[in-house]
């Protein structure tokens, strides 16, 4: 999925947060000259903006409130990632929520990029309830715009933390549709547009896609700072392996990627700071350090 690119030749960073790594990987998946619907802020938004800044200048960024092709004024105020002046700045068009939904239903929005809480082998997403729905556990935000994106964009990129409790054999609640039970035509049988569905999953440790036949999650590559065993141990089900059996190693963030990200996007460190781990390269060896410690190490 991610082949060589401008990042391959560029100088690599020796220290970065796992979340920064995840954003860079997602950014490298961005396809130029396509429309991207990004739900809210966070990793999905940063990935697309970073790609647009460095690799794919002709990407068009679309937001749920109907902002089309903005050149957002970064950084944003806390939480103000949608329906506010800065994210809407210098747009080509300000539409409405139904308006942009129409554009998506009519097929004008190519890619969606989504954060999620929980995922199953068929890319179904849960952002509604962890536990037994309505009986015990915890209520979360609900699908928001993610259901729309997951249903109607042509290809959907999912982002989540690489944790065992997040990769589950069956999500507690399907908030946004993946390939449902994975059977052929499952999405069409419930009224969803043809030729849509999850396309990639990017975590802080690994990159996945979905097998075209079985629609099952398939591992493609892992971070240089983890082992395959670590990746699989932090999943409650076993993903398929790559068609050729070779799990690739993802290239670490480049210095340029991180400079842009840190100085123009996550300027306050708010996004990065919520990640648990920083990755530091010492010689040829990657090590994971705690956040407190990393603060001292990080050059920024």
């Amino acid at each position: 999925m991610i082949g060589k690119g401008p990042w391959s030749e560029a100088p690599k960073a020796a220290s970065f947060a796992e979340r920064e790594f995840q954003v860079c990987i997602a950014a490298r998946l961005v396809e130029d000259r396509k429309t991207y619907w990004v739900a809210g802020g966070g990793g999905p938004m940063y990935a697309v903006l970073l790609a647009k800044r460095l690799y794919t200048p002709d990407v068009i960024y679309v937001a749920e409130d109907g902002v089309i092709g903005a050149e957002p004024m970064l950084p944003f105020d806390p939480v103000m990632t949608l329906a506010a002046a800065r994210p809407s700045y210098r747009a080509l068009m300000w539409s409405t929520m139904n308006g942009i939904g129409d554009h998506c239903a009519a097929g004008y929005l190519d890619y969606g990029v989504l954060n999620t809480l929980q995922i199953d082998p068929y890319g179904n997403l849960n952002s509604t309830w962890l536990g037994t729905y309505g009986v015990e556990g915890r209520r979360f935000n609900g699908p928001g715009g993610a259901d729309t994106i997951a249903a109607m964009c042509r290809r959907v990129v999912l982002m989540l933390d690489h944790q065992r409790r997040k990769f589950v054999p069956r999500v507690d609640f399907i908030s946004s549709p993946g390939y449902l039970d994975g059977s052929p035509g499952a999405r069409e049988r419930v009224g969803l547009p043809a030729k849509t569905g999850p396309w990639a999953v990017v975590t802080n440790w690994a990159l996945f896609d979905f097998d075209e036949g079985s629609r099952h999650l398939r591992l493609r590559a892992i971070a240089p700072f983890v082992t395959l065993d670590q990746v699989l141990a932090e999943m409650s089900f076993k993903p398929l392996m790559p068609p050729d059996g070779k799990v690739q190693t993802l290239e670490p963030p480049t210095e340029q990627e991180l400079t842009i990200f840190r100085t123009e996007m996550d300027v306050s460190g708010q996004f990065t700071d919520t990640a648990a781990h920083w990755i530091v390269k010492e010689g040829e060896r990657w090590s994971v350090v705690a956040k407190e410690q990393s603060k001292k190490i990080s050059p920024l």
Partner: protein
Amino acid sequence: MTGKSLRVLDEGQGEYLSVDPDQFREWTGRKERALVAKLMSPAEAVSRFVADGDYVVWETNYLNRGPATLIREVIRQRKQRLWVGGKFTWVIVAMLVEAGCCDRADLGFFVGGPAVTRAVIEKKLKVYEYSNLIMTARLRAGAMGISFIPVRSLGGTDNFKYSGAKLLEDPYTGKPTVVVPALNPDVALIHVHQADQYGNARIFGTTITDVESALASRKVIVSAEEIINTEEFRHKPGLTKIPYYVVDAVVHQPFGAYPGECPGLYSSDSNHVVEILGAINGDRVKQYLDKWIYGMASDEQMLIERVGTPKLRELQRRATTVAAEGYRA
């Protein structure tokens, strides 16, 4: 009779607000058509036009040009048993639930915290599951005066199961198609940049379903940063987003979206944003309500005494020095 029929392939089990376009027309038939002044205070507007048991929608949220003053007034007046449309909202559902105002919610996106989880599990809050776009589709159908509308999402999710949606055999393609019921709320609360005394309203920037909610709802309260002369509407009729005849009350309320942003006019108050988020996630919403709502006789008092003019000036300055293009006539 053709003898043909369309199969109903699946149905959500969620209760939904009763659908009857003709009944809605009965109501709209009684509304005033002449240009009559509708200016009143937030307290009077909420007192006259929000009743216990009403289905209430509001546009945008507590962060972005939402009707924050009107929501606080609903809480201050301790309205009860509201059924709310919680799409693209943020903390308002949690505030209403903790204030005891709300016992049913159609949900798209919201920030609930422990209080909402508890209310659901204890069955003090019934929830029905949609998404932002499905709720906007329902409001659009309500605004169109029709009873239902086909959509290309929702199918296959558990939201569908807990919603009023149906999966039908499409009358044209024969393929399975999801339809959702129209929504005609009792009340819409909408905050706008400019209105006249009759209710004609301008909004700059994107809208969520401001226009659709205004059309679809029986009672419409508009709060406005600025009251302008009707002559200004007549000079640029292309800027009018909401026509006066759907509006029942006009509230002149500068900073009516505080602590949210009103694009082009003032920024959000970041400290307040963090405070309410913290209150919700930390299960301290009641303290928040005491401090900012119950403890204040009105939003006037809150803005002047609790927030203070220097802060309001700062929020204005931050909004108007950058990114303010496109938010003026």
